[in-house]
């Protein structure tokens, strides 16, 4: 019974259908990186560090005319309920790393940095559902903090159907429950185009459109949070420099 109470329409954690979990984020949290971001969406906590664009280390990458992106996704053993040491190369981590690499490969303006590479280190400190989405948002924040040119913000969110009413930003319990189809979507804010779309459970065709709309409004909200954080930190930097 996931809906907390029928007539109030509250979910298991007290949120309404289209309410997002509380997002707090901060940029420039790690010293010796070019850009870094700490991103919290509900209980999912992620830390991202960016190094680059710098001289490509492996021989092969130094031939290309585009920047080479390499993403490492690390799950900390204390991140979920039972403590489990997960290696960087287990299938789920590799899949999330490749999805993020593919998503940002076409958003970053790569031709400006031939024969260079950008390293993205994503560290999952705590997970409570929506891991891929939070990683995308955190990486987007860190890339902007690193001053790496991109054509747009990329914001991601998951949404789904619980007791056949559309829900936004599912946590781990909602995501894992048996009959809730859920989609993960990453959107380019300005153009509204879809960078990433993943649906992993059965869903009637006509139910897809409303959940897509809901997810896009969710992304717009996330964009506003990210944007204000970036503006704030830039403003404070400018103030302290020009003082």
């Amino acid at each position, binding site marked *: 019974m996931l809906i907390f109470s029928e007539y109030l329409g509250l979910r298991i954690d007290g949120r309404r259908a289209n309410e997002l979990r509380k997002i707090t984020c901060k940029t420039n949290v790690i010293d010796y990186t070019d850009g870094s971001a700490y991103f919290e969406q509900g209980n999912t906590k992620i830390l991202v560090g960016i190094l680059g664009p710098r001289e490509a280390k492996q021989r092969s990458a130094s031939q290309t005319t585009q920047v080479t992106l390499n993403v490492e996704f690390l799950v900390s053993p204390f991140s979920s309920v039972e403590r489990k040491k997960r290696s960087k190369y287990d299938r789920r981590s590799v899949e999330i790393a490749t999805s993020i690499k593919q998503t940002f490969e076409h958003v970053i303006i790569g031709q400006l940095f031939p024969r260079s590479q950008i390293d993205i280190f994503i560290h999952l400190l705590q997970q409570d559902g929506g891991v891929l989405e939070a990683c995308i948002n955190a990486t987007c924040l860190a890339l902007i903090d690193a001053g790496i040119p991109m054509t747009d913000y990329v914001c991601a969110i998951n949404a789904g159907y619980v007791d056949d009413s559309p829900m936004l930003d599912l946590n781990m319990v909602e995501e894992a429950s048996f009959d809730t189809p859920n989609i993960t979507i990453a959107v380019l804010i300005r153009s509204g185009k879809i960078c990433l*779309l993943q649906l992993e459970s059965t869903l009637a065709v006509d139910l897809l459109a409303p959940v897509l709309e809901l997810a896009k409004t969710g992304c717009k909200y996330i964009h506003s949070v990210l944007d204000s954080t970036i503006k704030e930190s830039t403003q404070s930097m400018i103030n302290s420099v020009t003082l």
Partner: protein
Amino acid sequence: MELNANNQKFVNESLKKGFRVDGRGIYDLRNLKIDLGNQYGSVEVQLGETRVHAKTSIELARPLPDRPSEGIFIISVDFSGPGSLQQGEKVSGPASGVAAGSDAEGRAAAQEVAISRLLEKILKSTRVVDVESLCISVGEQVWRLRVDVHFLDYGGNYLDAGIIAAVSSLSHFRRPEVLKVGETTTIYSVEERAPVPLSINNIPACLTFAYFENELLVLDPSYLEEKFMSGSISIAINSNSELCCISKAGGIAIEPDTVNLCIVVAIEKAKFLIDAIRSALK
């Protein structure tokens, strides 16, 4: 060896005019051949130049502790030998934006991981096989079903061919009959009683679209189209026309209504594929 800038430009130019390099229409599938092997559950599928072989096998096993009443369903995917994606990846060039040497292998290996994970997700999420029916006696004995998918020849779009092969192999497979009388369960060998088909809930079909600059779409990309595409979206639809799985990871961003267009075409083509599989299994 045909990965060069001229071919890339040619593929894009002809697509702008609505022509595909192998003469197909924009939404035409390549010709599909499903040959059933002599053993139950051994199927070879040919989709254009892409060839895949799938084999289903079964054995008795103890159920997993957290799911005593369910059988075990394992999907293993194998790219070794001629079917591996590393073939012909050596050539670099702006076409694939890939440098020669290890980077190409790296990219190909990641593609193989992506294909096998997607294949697994589709077969599991659409619940092709009803795992409860694989249970013989709760907590003690269940069937452990295993589908091995071998990719033999890479002609582009391994995923769709892989799904067709796996699903046909599961539907074609027969398992030994089991009779449960009170406490005693007798498992008849194939000679004693005719083997029984698996309980297949529904047959999914997967349709992959490749897209190029400014929303040009093609269904079932061939080898060249897959090398020069700027992204792809795969949509799996089950036999009662429900969406089971969508995966659009990476590549350039596309308009939402292009996604809807893909879904409409996918539903149409899925019916065709499912009928083809059913007629092949008669």
